[in-house]
């Protein structure tokens, strides 16, 4: 009886663990099964590189959206990455313990703020600001970049900081012994040593930025045209889905699901990159640990 119960429990636990495999498989199957036929009907190449998106005329090209996503993400990285890494360096190597505790809380909070609230903040603060400073309507790639740059900060900080902390103390001491100042040791020795962790944080930030829908949609203007410049609007893949899914039917609907497939593939690539990088940084860390012992 007891043996039976134990095996039963084991199987239950195992099934629960397998659920995530099942869920991923299900998501893949459903997205691909619903998206690929639509892509075929439109023509894969035409769908991916077409520069016009006119559901009314049955013209579906998502190239403007792909570009929009890439531009917005790149802009967010330009704003978010230096700020995030500098903050991580400050927290890891310069700040006093009390400030670090406080900042950690702040970063956690920043990560917890819902994306609609960011979007709303962008709508009522950043958009008018951009409008007043640079002209135009304000809802633009620039506004989206600023909001996304803020949104990826916590991701970058919370992964870079442990990576910096994991660099063995002996590196730092060695650098000091060679006559380097504190700053020089941090920027020339510790930062390069923590490289793979820091890059991993950036990759994850890219994933977050590319997948963000609500906040971007609220500030980016969403014209389904080729993005013209920083101050003009653009539409990303995510906002394309959110905006039109509500009323889409038939091929239009399939085209939107196909957009999600493209987005999904982007995300999968980013994820793979991330786990590869993370694996490397962990490996490095363990090798160092062993050497220290």
């Amino acid at each position: 009886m007891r043996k039976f119960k134990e095996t039963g429990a084991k199987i239950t636990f195992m099934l629960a663990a397998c659920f995530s495999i099942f869920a991923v498989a299900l998501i893949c199957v459903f997205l691909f099964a619903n998206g690929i036929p639509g892509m075929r009907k439109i023509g894969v190449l035409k769908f991916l590189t077409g520069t016009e998106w006119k559901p009314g005329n049955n013209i579906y090209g998502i190239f403007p959206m792909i570009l929009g996503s890439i531009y917005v993400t790149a802009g967010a990285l330009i704003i978010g990455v230096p700020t995030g890494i500098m903050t991580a360096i400050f927290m890891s190597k310069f700040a006093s313990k009390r400030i670090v505790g406080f900042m950690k809380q702040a970063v956690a909070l920043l990560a917890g703020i819902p994306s609609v609230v960011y979007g709303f903040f962008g709508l009522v603060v950043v958009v008018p600001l951009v409008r007043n400073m640079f002209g135009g309507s304000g809802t633009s790639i620039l506004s989206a970049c600023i909001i996304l740059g803020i949104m990826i900060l916590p991701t970058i900080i919370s992964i870079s900081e442990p990576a910096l902390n994991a660099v063995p103390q002996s590196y730092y001491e060695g650098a000091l012994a060679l006559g380097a100042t504190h700053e020089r040791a941090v920027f020339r020795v510790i930062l390069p040593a923590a490289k793979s962790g820091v890059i991993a944080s950036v990759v994850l930030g890219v994933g977050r930025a590319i997948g963000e829908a609500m906040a971007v949609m609220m500030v980016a203007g969403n014209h389904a045209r080729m993005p013209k410049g920083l101050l003009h609007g653009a539409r990303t893949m995510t906002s394309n889905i959110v905006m039109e899914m509500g009323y889409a039917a038939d091929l239009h609907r399939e085209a939107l699901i196909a957009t999600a497939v493209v987005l999904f593939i982007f995300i999968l690539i980013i994820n793979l990159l991330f786990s590869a990088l993370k694996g490397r940084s962990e490996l490095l860390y363990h090798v160092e640990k062993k050497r220290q012992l």
Partner: protein
Amino acid sequence: MLILVSVVGYILVMGIPNISPDLFKWRYTTENVSLLPALVNTILITFISLLLAVPLGIFAAVYLVEYARKGNIIVKLVRITAETLSGIPSIIYGLFGMLFFVTTMGFRMSLLSGALTLSIMILPIIMRTTEEALIAVPAEYREGSFGLGAGKLRTVFKVVLPSAIHGILAGIILSIGRIVGETAALIYTAGTVAEIPGSLFDSTRTLSVHMYTLSSEALYIKQAYATAVVLLVIVIGINSLSAYLAKKIGRRTYEKD
């Protein structure tokens, strides 16, 4: 730092004067865009998704930590898929939920579809935190329990899980935060009807969705500010609770050393 203060500060300053008792009226009308139904819906949807995801996540973590052998192929696969799940953007969850729960399973846009979608979304968070909490439980506890003649199952439920409870709770609270803040995954699964649902199969609207519709209609900016404040307060509360619990574990493991 500055950014955080400015975001939070701005919203609080602009929002607090706009909070009025009218916003908490039971019924939603066009004259009075009450947020109470949305608040109730948020609580309901959180509760249902947790009901589904928490046991699943905890069991999965128990398997990974207590039962599976290291290097087992299932473990590897589970890890990879869990990581993938946590990387999928919420809009894709929303779309999947729409295709699977709403259309294929025939749940329509409903509380249930939304909750099911969300429970898949928070699964990796719960698994991950529970796993970490279980790993932190010292091996002596298990050995002691085995030594007293308890079976594996009993050890897991009476010894290991109770001593990891703080970590598990912190994970659950974290996922509540995620649910409360979620919009994209819910628009097309739970819908946007701003009423308190009569059953599991009625369409609902959570606070974040409520806020999104308010600000996109652009008629109710004041109310949107107020909703933002309510959302922020909830998130801050949840965050500090989770930080408090995490600190508690930290201290305990520290004492053991």
